[in-house]
């Protein structure tokens, strides 16, 4: 039961996260899905992401940003409590050039969390997950105050009820 509420909360946060992150919006990153300790984002092909005009291949930096963002969201959902995060380290292996014109999809998995540190693996591919463009290994750290999921879910419910109430009073008036 709490899992369902947690997933709804993650989904809400995940969808909002990209529009609230200027650099992710700038590159045109999109939210795909979020699960317990996993997250998937995509980066549609665009001229502004190209790293070599001769080949049209997307720059490694854009792939780095996509993987960092996907790992961040997965780490967010992997912790026992909710709060702000910062990347500690990011290791990326570029297996091959991304195909020009193709959307890059990144899936991150948070396989272990301690009180303050999350450990993640991520894969970026352009259609076939078993033929990756890049793989990543990352560590994230929690920063600042944290909130329990129960409190976050209660807050979300209160917001929803208030919105409904406001709508009702609005309709009546």
């Amino acid at each position, binding site marked *: 039961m709490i899992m369902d509420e947690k997933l709804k909360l993650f989904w809400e946060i995940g969808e909002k996260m990209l529009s609230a992150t*200027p650099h992710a919006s700038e590159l045109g990153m999109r939210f795909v899905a979020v699960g317990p300790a996993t997250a998937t984002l995509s980066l549609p092909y665009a001229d502004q992401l190209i790293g070599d005009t001769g080949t049209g291949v997307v720059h490694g930096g854009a792939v*780095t940003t996509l993987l960092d963002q996907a790992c961040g969201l997965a780490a967010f959902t992997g912790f026992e409590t909710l709060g702000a995060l910062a990347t500690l380290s990011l290791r*990326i292996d570029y297996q091959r050039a991304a195909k020009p014109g193709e959307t890059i999809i990144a899936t991150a998995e948070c396989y272990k969390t301690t009180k303050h540190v999350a450990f993640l693996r991520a894969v970026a591919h352009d259609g076939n997950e078993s033929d990756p463009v890049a793989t990543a290994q990352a560590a994230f750290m929690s920063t600042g105050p944290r909130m329990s999921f129960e409190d976050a879910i209660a807050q979300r419910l209160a917001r929803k009820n208030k919105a409904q109430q406001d709508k009702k009073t609005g309709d009546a008036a």
Partner: protein
Amino acid sequence: MSDTDLQSRVEAMLADIPYAQTLGVRPSFMGEEFTLVLPFAQSNIGNATLPALHGGGIGGLMETCAIVQLLLANPGRALPKPIGINIDYLRRGKPVDTFARAQIFKQGSRVANVRVRAWQDRFDTPISALSGQFLLGRTSD
């Protein structure tokens, strides 16, 4: 080679990298020493509440810095390609200008090992460090 020659050479390299323009980087020289500058831009923010620059953008700055440094050291070769990179994030990237400088630790015939440092206030207080292996580009002849 004069500063302005180097400057225009690097500007020509960056023109072939549209992503570098998306970030908004520009080259800077002190003598022959090359620094890649990322002027602050709202579009490079990764956390609006702190605020902090996006770690991916800082990674992109350092990766581009390594690529340009390799091109400067290998005139006539095509763009190098990253094989693997390792980034340490040391401090929050504040919403100010960021600088990156690369050092080629070792270069063989095909692969080069490069280290890059990114800093803001002082060179001695880096915000991030990258170490990476790059496959060198084809020679023109």
